[in-house]
Every structure is written in structure tokens, then in C-alpha cells.
């Protein structure tokens, strides 16, 4: 089935490429559990494109990060092709809402997603160096490490964000590749079960948890750089002197402030794509902070980011009638 989908993708990209500036997708890497982003301009490279449970990167950010952000698009520029999963498509919608990209600038290849594998979870079960290949079969991931094939339950190896996924199918697309996927969650409670579990703990315990988690932060800013909606990049206020919100001092207060500035800047914008947590080299569950804000947004304002390109995010508008909030 995956083979069919891949062939369909290659065929569709081949047809579309002459009209495209470039195609952004995933390619296999040396590691069977991970893929790498690939930027394709010529037909010869199309065969590199792949899809499947290891395509974990959200590629939407490449459309708006420097140098893409610095140079305004030329009026006659061709659209850019991009592969998106359900969660990635919401990032695109959010970027369209905020007018960072226009809809006609992108050709969207939508890929229904059955969940992405967090290779770090696999590594806890089997040494990564031994893994020869891995395939998804039904509800399990089958690992070939030269011995007896190891069957791992998907619930154990999928990325945390995938377990409560409500939107596995792209919410915006030009073409769709493969069969529609079934959502793993259909309720707020299931999507935000980790937030609820955290909320149930006493305040001191929560504080202690975040102090110990954030203490590991090395302020590498990978979470910020990977976030498709963190568009300030090298103008980020955690690195400027004017204004000088943060010093380079290494301490928990600075790390707290950085992560909470990041979260507050995403309030009402975060689509929960989980990139920040995926790229964290220190395994800090940083998406959880944003999930808490997303939950508040849904409960208080009935708003989920990245679903409707025409919607105005509630925190990005001035409405004098909103006196009740």
C-alpha cells in the first residue's frame, strides 16, 4: 500500500514539477527510522521522495523562515510544492491566516497520516544501530534487527502528539495521496489528556516538574527554530539587547522566561504540530506548555488554530465588543 502511495506521489510530482518553483518533501536517510527533508528542482531527483510513518518533520516552516522571509516573492514566481500531513497542513493554514504566505503560492500535496514514529521511543527497546529496517503493519511497528522480527505496539512508539491526533487528514490540499486516515481522537479530553494529567497534580509538584525539566534546557533554540510559526528567528527577543528581555545568564529563571515567551507568542496560534518537542535534544516535553494554552483557547474562545484560512485568530484582533472575556 505504501509502495502504491509512493508511486502515486512520484507520478503526481512529475506531472506538476514543470509548473513549480520547487518541491519540498521527505527523502529516506541512512537511518531506517528517520527521513530527511528534500528540496527538488529537477525530475531526476523525484525518486528520492518518500512518505510513511517516519516522515516526522513539519516542512511548512521552510516557506517562511529566512531567507524565504527576507526576500519578498517576485510577482511572477511559480508556486512551491509541499508535502503535508494533517498536522503540517494546519501550520500552512495558520501561515495563510497570518498572511505570511498566500494560498496560490503553494501547491499542497496532502498525505493522510497514520501516525509518525518517535525513533527515541524505539531506541528504548532496541539499539538503533541494530535496526536494519522497520515497517508499519496494522497496529504495530515491525523492526528487523537481523534476529527475530520485533513487533512493537504503535501506541508505544508513536510521537506523543500523534496519540491524541484529531486531524490526521490534511485540512487544506490540492491533491491527496492515499486513503483517508481515521483520527486517533475525536474528543478534547483525549487530545488534551496529558494536560489534564498535569493539571491534576498539586501546584508544588507541577512547579518541581517544570523546574527539573527546564533545568535541562541548553537554550539551543532548536524548538524555536523548528516551530513553523516562530517567524522572528534572528530578531527573537530572547537574543536582542534592544529590548533586553533576557540575558545570556544560565539559570532556571532565564530558561523559564524563554519557554514561556515562546508559548505566549504562540497563544491562539499554535496548531500543536509538536515540532518543538520532536527536535528538543534534551527530551523536554515543551509542546505540553503550548498544549495547555491551546486547551484554554478551545475551552474559553472555542478556537483551534489552523483550521480555517479565513478565520481571524482571536488574539490578533481588536474587537471592542469582547468585553466579557
Amino acid at each position, binding site marked *: 500500500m505504501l509502495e502504491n502511495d509512493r508511486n502515486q506521489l512520484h507520478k503526481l510530482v512529475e506531472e506538476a514539477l514543470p509548473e513549480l518553483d520547487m518541491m519540498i518533501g521527505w527523502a529516506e536517510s541512512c537511518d531506517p527510522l528517520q527521513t530527511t527533508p528534500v528540496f527538488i528542482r529537477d525530475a531526476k531527483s523525484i525518486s528520492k521522495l518518500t512518505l510513511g510513518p517516519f516522515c516526522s518533520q513539519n516542512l511548512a516552516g521552510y516557506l517562511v523562515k529566512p531567507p524565504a*522571509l*527576507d526576500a*519578498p516573492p517576485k510577482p511572477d514566481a511559480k508556486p512551491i510544492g509541499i508535502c503535508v500531513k494533517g498536522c503540517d497542513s494546519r501550520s500552512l493554514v495558520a501561515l495563510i491566516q*497570518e*498572511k*505570511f504566505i498566500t494560498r496560490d503560492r503553494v501547491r499542497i500535496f496532502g498525505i493522510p497520516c497514520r501516525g509518525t514514529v518517535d525513533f527515541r521511543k524505539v531506541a528504548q527497546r532496541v539499539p538503533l544501530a541494530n535496526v536494519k529496517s522497520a515497517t508499519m503493519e496494522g497496529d504495530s511497528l515491525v523492526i528487523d534487527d537481523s534476529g527475530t522480527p520485533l513487533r512493537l505496539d504503535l501506541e508505544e512508539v508513536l510521537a506523543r502528539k500523534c496519540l491524541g491526533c484529531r486531524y490526521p487528514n490534511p485540512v487544506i490540499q490540492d491533491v491527496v495521496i492515499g486513503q483517508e486516515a481515521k483520527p486517533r481522537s475525536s474528543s478534547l479530553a483525549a487530545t488534551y489528556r496529558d494536560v489534564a494529567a498535569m493539571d491534576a497534580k498539586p501546584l508544588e509538584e507541577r512547579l518541581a516538574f517544570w523546574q527539573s525539566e527546564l533545568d535541562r534546557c541548553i537554550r539551543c533554540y532548536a524548538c524555536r527554530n523548528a516551530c513553523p510559526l516562530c*517567524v*522572528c*528567528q534572528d*530578531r*527573537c*527577543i530572547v537574543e*536582542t539587547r*534592544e*529590548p*533586553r*528581555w533576557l540575558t545570556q545568564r544560565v539559570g532556571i529563571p532565564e530558561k523559564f522566561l524563554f519557554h514561556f515567551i515562546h508559548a505566549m*507568542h504562540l497563544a491562539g496560534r499554535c496548531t500543536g504540530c509538536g515540532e518543538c518537542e520532536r527536535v528538543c535534544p534534551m527530551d523536554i516535553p515543551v509542546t505540553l506548555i503550548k498544549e495547555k494554552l491551546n486547551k484554554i483557547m478551545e475551552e474559553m474562545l472555542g478556537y483551534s488554530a489552523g483550521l480555517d484560512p479565513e478565520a*481571524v485568530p482571536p*488574539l*490578533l*484582533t*481588536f474587537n*471592542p465588543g469582547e468585553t466579557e472575556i
Partner: protein
Amino acid sequence: MRIGVFVCNCGTNIAGTVDTAKVASEALAFADVVYATNYMYTCSEPGQQEIQRAIGEYGLQGVVVAACSPRMHEPTFRRAVEKAGLNKYMFEMANIREHVSWIGNDREANTRKAVDLVRMAVGKLRFNQPLFSSKMPVNKRLLVIGGGVAGIQAALDCADGGVDVVMVERKQYIGGKMAQLDKTFPTIDCSSCILGPKMVDVSQKENITLYAASEIESISGYIGNFTVEIRKKTTYVNWDACTGCGACMEKCPAKKAEDYFNEGLGTARAINIPFPQAIPKKAVIDAQFCRQLNGKKCGVCAKICPVKAIDFEMKDTIVTEKVGAIIAATGYDLFDHSVYGEYGAGRLPDVITGIQYERILSASGPYGGHIRRPSDGKEPTEIVFISCVGSRDQSVGRPYCSGVCCMYIAKQAILTRDHLPESNSYVFYMDIRAPGKNYDEFVRRAQEEYGVQYIRGRVGKIYQRGDRMVVQGADTLLGVQVEVEADLVVLATGVESSSGAGELAEKLRISYDQYGFYMESHPKLRPVETNTAGVYLAGACQGPKDIPSSVAQGSAAASKVQSLFAHDMIETNPQVALVNERNCIACGKCIQVCPFGAIQWKELRGGIKKAEVLPSVCQGCGVCNATCPPKAVQLQHATDNQILAEVNELCA
């Protein structure tokens, strides 16, 4: 930076609970502080001279005064440091009176908090920059919103002073509630006789442009330079042609239209001029009742009109006016008494409101000035007045006193006796509020000369018995239950804010209280100013008011406008937002959230877009700064670094 700190005793206001000498001595130890002292009254002439002397003697580059609220004396001290040669923004104020000495008695804790506040002010001052205002021309035209007596007074006063006035009134006539009144207290002079000439003046003054049947669509700009869009509502009559002859009214076959001017006591024609003295005297078609506009064959008015003014195809039009100042005089509305089930909730036809009774008393009213009751047209002999209907009643969300009802009940009771000498009037009241000049004497006259029976107590129930109504209440002075059989009951419905007051306030960007009354800038010292420069208040839009107070406020607001218009140029406020283009990522969020439309795109070479603040439109609210992710927009004099410096000092 060389900083001087001046701690004010404010007599005993501050020194009573704060050790000001200790605050000064501790301040002297702060970095950059080269001089610190305390003083009896820093705002006094010698107090200001002390600051100016110290600036010279110690070469101060910045000054901190720890005293009262900056709302009180910041302008005073800014002027003082400016006179001594400093930029006036190299000054900070720490509020150790309202925020410290007035709210706590613990001298030690107060002193500690005062020291903290001074340290924060010093911390901020280190990051202050000199700021400079520019000059903007003043457009010497005035917009008056509302054509009631307060608005009329303001417009006439300004027009007399040579100011061009634009008046907008949403009804088809000016005169407001006063035009509906029969007589006015406490002199019993005829309302339309004293108001009429003023209304005529409005229409005849060459420098007053009147837009009746019009509403404010939008307001942009700032003091000295407002742009106002006015929606002229569809009247279906070309007012330029209409002569007010009234021929259309006579022939109009739709006779069952709502008579708003007579408060629903009679009926009107679908094409109508509400009363003979109406200004402007122009007809308007009520689309709800017009036959032609409801798809029936008619058009009688169009045939009869001698000047062919009828236009069934008419649409709303928008006109734009540019003005330099605005007076809001939008008046009030009356409480809807139907929430009171015990008073019949509007179901009993002979339970009427005070304003309906005014129309009954009026010679130009629905009954030609004869007192009759609406149900059967009989002359009443027993009349009950009930005060505080929708006033001083927390349970209906109206805890305030409407201020005028006690007086108009007394007036109506007196007039009733004049009209019907055989009648008996009863007034159920909670307290009698008659604090104006000759007011209490007037109420006494009602009681003593006119035999009006005042019963202190509330009415519990009104119900029908035969063709009369039984009013059951308590006489709390005698401690007994009383029952009056009445032919007519008049409810003194209270004053509430004008419908749509909130929406207009949003357009004017002025604040309003929970009841919709507009907030004055200071309840005692700035009663007709708002916190938006160039916008003034007159009349009952600011709170319940009688005619003399409304007229006085109209004149007061007019004098404020004229003192503004005495200047050709005004200084702009430099405390506005400014974009650091290097940091701007062109996300446009500031443009999206700016409530004033003060931010726009600017294109640099190579088509790179950046946000740009229009300093003359910016009101310095800071929403853009809060929204900007890289904080490229900074509010001058409240920059992130200045505020962070304060926070750091507080946490130090």
C-alpha cells in the same frame, strides 16, 4: 546620569504614615542619584524652585519626584524641570500618596514600599530619552452629537463665538426630551416657549450645519483633526425641496403609524412631521407603516406634494465632515417599567409613564391638553404618582438616583390640580430629593398649597377593580397599609443612558460606566472633559441631569472648545509607538490589532515591507507593542527596557 530625588511630605498626607526623610536618605544610596531631599509641599512654588535650584547646582540630568498620582501633578513638575532646562520627559513620578500613604497605616511597611517605588522610578529614568513634540494645526470646526437642550446650548455658544458647528441628531427633529415636555420645574414655564427660540436659532445660524435623522458612522483622527462620517438615514423625502407644508400628512391614508413623539398615546400618519414647531420642519416616511413601501398601491403623498419632494427610491447616504473638537450630548432614555410586574408591567392601559403624562398635559399633545385617561378617555379624579420606578433599585440594576423624578412628579401634581381642581393626587415616594435652587420650596408648594398627598412608602401592587385601579402600598411613616382607588397611575420612570450610548463611546474612544453613562475626566475638576483629548461631554449622557444643569454643561463644554480653538496649533504627544525597522518582521499583527488605524505598511527599497506608525493618529495605547512578537514596536516613554528596568529594580 545625574539624578535628583525629591520626596514630598504633602503636609501630613504622606509624612503622616511614611518616613519621607528616610526615603530620601535611602534614595541617595541608589546608583546615579547625586541629590535627594524631602520637602513639605513639593508642588508649591518654593518646592518647584527647590527642584530647579538643585538641577542647576548639582547638574541634574533627570528628576524623580515621589509624591501624589501623576494624574495630579505630573504636568506641574514637567513644566518645572523644563523651565530649568531639562527635557520634560527626563522626569519620573513615584506615587507614594494614593498608592502608599493613603492606603496603609503601617509606617515601616509604607516607608519600605515608598523606597521600592522610588527605586523603580530611578531605574526607569536611567532608560529615559528626551522626547520632542511637534505642532499640528487645529481645524476650528466643532461636531455636536445630539440636538437636545445641552447640545443646542453648546452649539449656539460656539456659533456665537464664530466657530463652525456641525450638529448631528438621530431623530428627525432637534429639541430632544425637552421638546416633549409641557412645563418645566420649578418655574412652571412652558417648555416649548423657552426651547423653541433656541431651536429656531440653530436652524437660522449660518455657521451651524444641521444633520437631523442622521447618525455617526465612524470617527477617526485626533484632537484638532477629526474626520467624521455621518450616515444620513433614509427619510424618503427630499429635504432640500420639502417646505414642511404638511399637505402630505393630511392626505396620507396610513393613519395607524406609531406616534413616537406622543409616546404611543395617539397614532400618527405614515408620513409625518411630529409636532408643529419641529426643527427642521420636514416630513419623514415611516417605512414600517407606509403602504407604498410595503408593496401596496398608494403614493398619495407623492401626488399631493406641491414640490415633488417624495422619493420612494431614497437610500442612506454618507457625508464626511472634518472637525477639530467633538461634544457628545446624546442625552438619556427612560427606564422600561415593564420589568415591574407589581405595577402592571405595561399591561394596564391607565398605568402610564411620566413622559406620557407630559404629552397628555401638553396643549399640542394627543388630547389637546385635556387630562384624560388613555383607556376610555374619562377625566380622572384620583391620580396616583409612584416615584423611583427604575431608580434606586438594585434589584433591577439601577442603584442610582435619577435626580429629576421627585421634581417632575411635584410639577405634574401641581399642573393636575390646575387642570382639574376637583381631583386628588397622591404621591408614593421613598425620599424627596429636591436639592436645587427653589426646588424644595416647589415641592412644599405642591404639598401645602395644592394639597397633594405625599405617602412615604412603596407600592406593592396595582390591580384592576371595575374601571378603576387599586393601588396597594405601605405608609411607612404611619406604619399602616394604604389602598387608593385610582383612575390614573403615573410612574416616575427613571433615567437611563441613551440607547446605543456604548457603541458611540467606542467610536469616540471614550470610556463609559456600567450603566452606559459617559465618564468625565475628573468627577470634580474636569466635569465636561473626557480622557480622549478633544472630546467633551454635555448633559445627561454623562449622568442623570435636569435642564439647568444640562444647559450649564452645554455652555461649559462650549467654553472648553473655544479655549482649544483659541490656538492655531497644538502640540502633539510624543508618547506614541515607534517601529524599529531593523527588528520588524513585517508580520502585520500590529496593523491588525491597532484600534485607531494608526499603523500602515511602508515599502523599503527592494519591495521589503515594514510597519510604520502615524504619530499623529497613534493614541499610545500600547496594544501594538504587546502584540509585536519581536517587540519591534516600542511605546515611547514606556519602552520594554524602561518597564523591565522597573521590574528588575522591584525584584532586586
